[in-house]
């Protein structure tokens, strides 16, 4: 009863607003995991998302229309995510943001049927970057294929411009996502003339002494690519340190380098030199983050703790920024806030030169490429936090694309 009365009241209030100002609320369905197994990410990422949307709303919203974010925490479980999606649908969401690989899988087909676009930054498979196969899902962040290619490029630059005769170790969390970087290495090894070996870390990834001894003593790797999740990255840092391996010869993928991992591994001094890859800028020196801090100050509130964990917080800001940019493009194209999911999907293709002062990579989303180009940036741990080690870059696009197409032909 209560729900219906509140809904009724909301409807009356909404119609009253609509009749006076002709502005319409733009609804986004946002899934999050603040309490499940990936809550370490969610508790920093989700506030970032809300903060950016609030910032835009405080400046008048999207062309005068307020953005409403409805968040549902699904605890990284599939059935609640399905429920959440249907809930968002009843709320007429123009965009839904699923969270987590299995949830993206479970919803991708439904979202295409319902013509509601969504993003899956950092989740799902590399295949999702293919816009022809998944017209309504936008990974917008570099896939593991792209990350692997970028890591090889980084190793090449760090080792003096050539990988001839060099040895690269690939240490990975032993699950399908962890293995996804391997095909690229397989492809690039003959081309660049390096040899590689893979070292699996079984879940839960808190025991990897033997693998790291193997890498440092027996294989004697010239460079290490680390694709670990959860607690594993901090354990790996400790083990590399113990084995005396130089951490500046290690590069981690996007889930292997949050501030939390560095702190858990013994702090910034211990982890000095460690390189990690990111699809959204890390650190606090971005104008948009300053604006968020100012917004909090203007409201007389303290800035949230989540802002210290910039690796994940900034990803929340990144996602929100891309979502709102797509919606804004849709509203502009339509001339009113009366937009559908298809309009928002087309809005993604119109995102150009939009980097929020370096927080976002120069995304170029096309109908074929929903990955946005596969941009990454590498940040290095120093005594006083992360410092950028490279600019936004990408590598071996032809090989990545070739592999993707082969994979799609294989699975369809």
């Amino acid at each position, binding site marked *: 009863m209560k729900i219906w009365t509140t809904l009724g009241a909301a409807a009356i209030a909404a119609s009253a607003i609509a009749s006076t100002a002709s502005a319409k609320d733009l609804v986004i369905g946002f899934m999050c995991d603040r309490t499940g*197994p990936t809550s370490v990410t969610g508790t920093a990422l989700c506030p970032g998302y*809300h903060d950016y949307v609030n910032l835009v709303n405080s400046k008048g919203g999207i062309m005068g229309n307020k953005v409403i974010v409805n968040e549902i*925490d699904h605890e990284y479980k599939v059935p609640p995510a399905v429920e959440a999606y249907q809930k968002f649908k009843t709320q007429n969401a123009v965009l839904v943001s699923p969270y987590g690989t299995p949830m993206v899988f*479970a919803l991708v087909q439904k979202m295409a049927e319902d013509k509601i676009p969504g993003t899956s930054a950092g989740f799902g*498979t590399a295949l999702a970057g293919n816009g022809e196969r998944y017209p309504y899902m936008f990974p917008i962040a570099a896939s593991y294929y792209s990350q692997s290619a970028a890591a090889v490029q980084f190793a090449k630059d760090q080792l003096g411009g050539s990988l001839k005769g060099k040895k690269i170790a690939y240490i990975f969390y032993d699950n399908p996502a962890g293995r996804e970087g391997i095909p690229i290495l397989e492809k690039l090894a003959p081309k660049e003339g390096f040899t590689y070996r893979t070292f699996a870390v079984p879940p839960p990834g808190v025991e990897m002494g033997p693998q790291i001894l193997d890498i440092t003593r027996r294989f004697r790797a010239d460079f290490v690519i680390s694709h670990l999740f959860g607690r594993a990255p901090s354990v790996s840092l400790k083990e590399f340190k113990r084995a005396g391996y130089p951490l500046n010869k290690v590069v981690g993928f996007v889930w292997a380098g949050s501030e939390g991992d560095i702190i858990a591994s013994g702090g910034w001094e211990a982890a000095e030199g460690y390189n990690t890859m990111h699809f959204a800028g890390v650190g606090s020196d971005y104008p948009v983050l300053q604006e968020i801090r100012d917004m909090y100050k203007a409201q007389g509130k303290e800035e949230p703790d989540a802002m210290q964990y910039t690796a994940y917080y900034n990803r929340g800001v990144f996602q929100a920024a891309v979502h709102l940019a797509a919606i804004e493009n849709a509203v502009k194209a339509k001339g009113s806030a009366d937009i559908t999911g298809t309009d928002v999907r087309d809005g993604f293709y119109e995102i150009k030169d939009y980097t929020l002062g370096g927080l976002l990579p120069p995304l170029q989303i096309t109908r074929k490429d929903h990955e946005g180009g596969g941009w990454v940036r590498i940040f290095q741990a120093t005594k006083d936090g992360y410092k950028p080690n490279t600019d936004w870059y990408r590598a071996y696009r032809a090989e990545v694309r070739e592999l993707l197409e082969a994979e799609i032909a294989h699975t369809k």
Partner: protein
Amino acid sequence: MFYRESGEYKTDYKRDMTLYALPISRFSVGLMVLLFFVAAPLLLGEYQLTLLSLVAIAVVGALGLNILVGYAGQLSIGHAAFMSVGAYTAANLVTKLDMPFLLTLPAGGLMAAAIGLVVGIPSLRIKGIYLAIATLAAQFIIEWIINHSPSISGGVQASIEIDRPTILGWKLDQAVELYMFLVTIAAIAIVCTQNLIRSRIGRAFIAIRDQDIAAEIIGISVFKYKLYAFGISSFYAGVTGVLYTYYLGIASYEQFTLVVSIDYLAMIIIGGLGSILGSVLGAFFITLLPIGIRLFMENVGSLFLEPEALASIISQMRLIVFGSLIIIFLIMEPEGLNRLWINIRNYFRVWPFSY
């Protein structure tokens, strides 16, 4: 189920064998059929039907686990692994052999049953908490095998996409169609379980649960029936996995982790061990309670909290409320929702008087 026990006089074998012996029980079954097969699809929207569909899938899984844990008394925490066996069997048959749904559903169940028989073998020697650990091992072993065999798991992130189910050329892609399909399967599962429990096999399960040595002395082959229990329970789990796969359009091992096994155990413990109605109520409870709590918090919380503060508080509070409700329910009635329902029924039977 919903009928009075008194007045059940059996004068011939036919009456003795009927599933719903009394008029009131036939009436209540008819009412349920009307409610879930006619009223719900006509009156409810897509969102509510989605909720009921998720519950229907959970009902099948909970029934299966209740046969094993509640009726046969064999503790298992590997239920989700058998679901994944069913899910991947069906997905592979669809993608590689293009088999229709009517074949993949039993095939998924049978494959899971076969694996379940193997996992059940240790149950002859070990009992209780030790058996639980053996099934836990099965959970991890099956997960590992699926994860590391591209021939099973399709290669790309160990997940296989499939199309929506087609029955005799009719593609089920609307929420109503999927709901009708799932609720039909759930109804079949309920009736099958009712019949199983009153058959020789079901009675043997109960005898083994209550006292396995006594059961053996009266001539029940304990090993055989324990294996039956594992096989049948895994069959239900496999079917649940197939249903999830068709409903979501994908088989992914991440949908069937240990947490899911625990969720199903929670369903049958809260619903009532060794009770069919309990399995159904438990599936409703565990699936819908978090949503109910969220709705309540959103409506009440928004009166005195700002939206962004609410977002983080809701998810934390939901866990706390969920956990404490489970504890309260179990303290109030350790035998679960089924017992609670019986108590309510008994109370109102003599209302307004009392014993």
